[in-house]
């Protein structure tokens, strides 16, 4: 489980567009680099990031070696009902970092 920071407005009006900001601590090692004695540093990246809102997927992206370390992703969605935003980052080995944040809609 990597450390993450997620910013979601604590509450929103129905129909309002809300901005969601996420950042995860990850080296995103490309596999193209070598250490100080010339050994290749193995690739280690997150390959998939998804977000569901009240069970429905509202955002998804594939990540590749060109993405910098500690990927920051911001996106918007429309507040429809009070529900959980579930964030999942999946790395190349299949390990999943999962965070849940509740969005209250009034």
């Amino acid at each position, binding site marked *: 489980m990597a450390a993450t*920071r997620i*910013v979601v407005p604590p509450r929103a009006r129905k129909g309002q567009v809300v901005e969601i*900001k996420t*950042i995860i*601590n990850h080296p995103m090692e490309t596999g193209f680099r070598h250490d100080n004695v010339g050994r290749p540093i193995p690739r280690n990246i997150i390959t998939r990031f998804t977000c569901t809102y009240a069970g429905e997927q509202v955002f998804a992206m594939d990540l590749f070696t060109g993405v*910098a370390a*500690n990927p920051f992703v911001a996106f918007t969605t429309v507040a429809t009902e009070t529900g959980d935003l579930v964030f999942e980052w999946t790395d190349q080995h299949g390990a999943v970092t999962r965070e849940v944040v509740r969005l209250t809609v009034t």
Partner: protein
Amino acid sequence: MRGGRRLPLAAAGGLLLLALGAPLARGTEPPRGIPLSELRSGREFVSPETRDQQDDLAVNPGMLWVAQGEKLWHEPAGAGGRACASCHGEPGSLAGVAARYPRYDAALGRVLNLEARIRHCRSERQGADPLAYESQPLLALTALVAYQSRGAPLAVSIDGPARPAFEAGRSLYHERQGQLDLACADCHERFWGRRLRAERISQGHPNGFPAYRLEWQTLGSLHRRLRACFQGVRAEPFAAGSPELVSLELYLAWRAQGLPVETPAVRR
């Protein structure tokens, strides 16, 4: 030593003041390469996007380390099973402290920077392994403590027993080094604001460290940054945490007096 020598020096400084009409606050105040009114934080030398990344704490990647530091702060370590929080309470109790570091420690008889202070606390107070310089936990704790002082103006003391370290740092700063035969002052005092290839040369202030450097793609200490500078002029870098770099850090902190702590800053 100081008591005996200070008066004549101050008097001589006073005479000099009268003679030159120089705007020195005190006779013992060393000359400044960049006047206080012209100090500009490294923040002003980066792109607007990078500045935004630093200012918006939700986006600032350095906050990942601050959050990690907060976790470590409450984690018991060492023989006594004590955490930082056992003695200091909440991290907020150290607000403003980082702005006064590096600082002379009378018990140890030397100047300590923030990292050295935390390492000392770990080995002596907690009875735990001192964290290695530049290790993730030490960076996280240093970032956490410095973050408590975010916005506080740098105000280190160079008086009394801290003076020899300050003078050592000052002379290192002005000493030409390496195959390129450059002193820190050559770039950061004479040519700040000008271009060095694609980049604008900053004034070389330490107020944002530990800082997230985009080039490193991680948080790093001031000493890592200084070592990169030494390598840049093709000089043999001093070890991280060495007395030389701590002295230089003290000089840099004095030189940046009044600039706000920006930890965790985002830099190129």
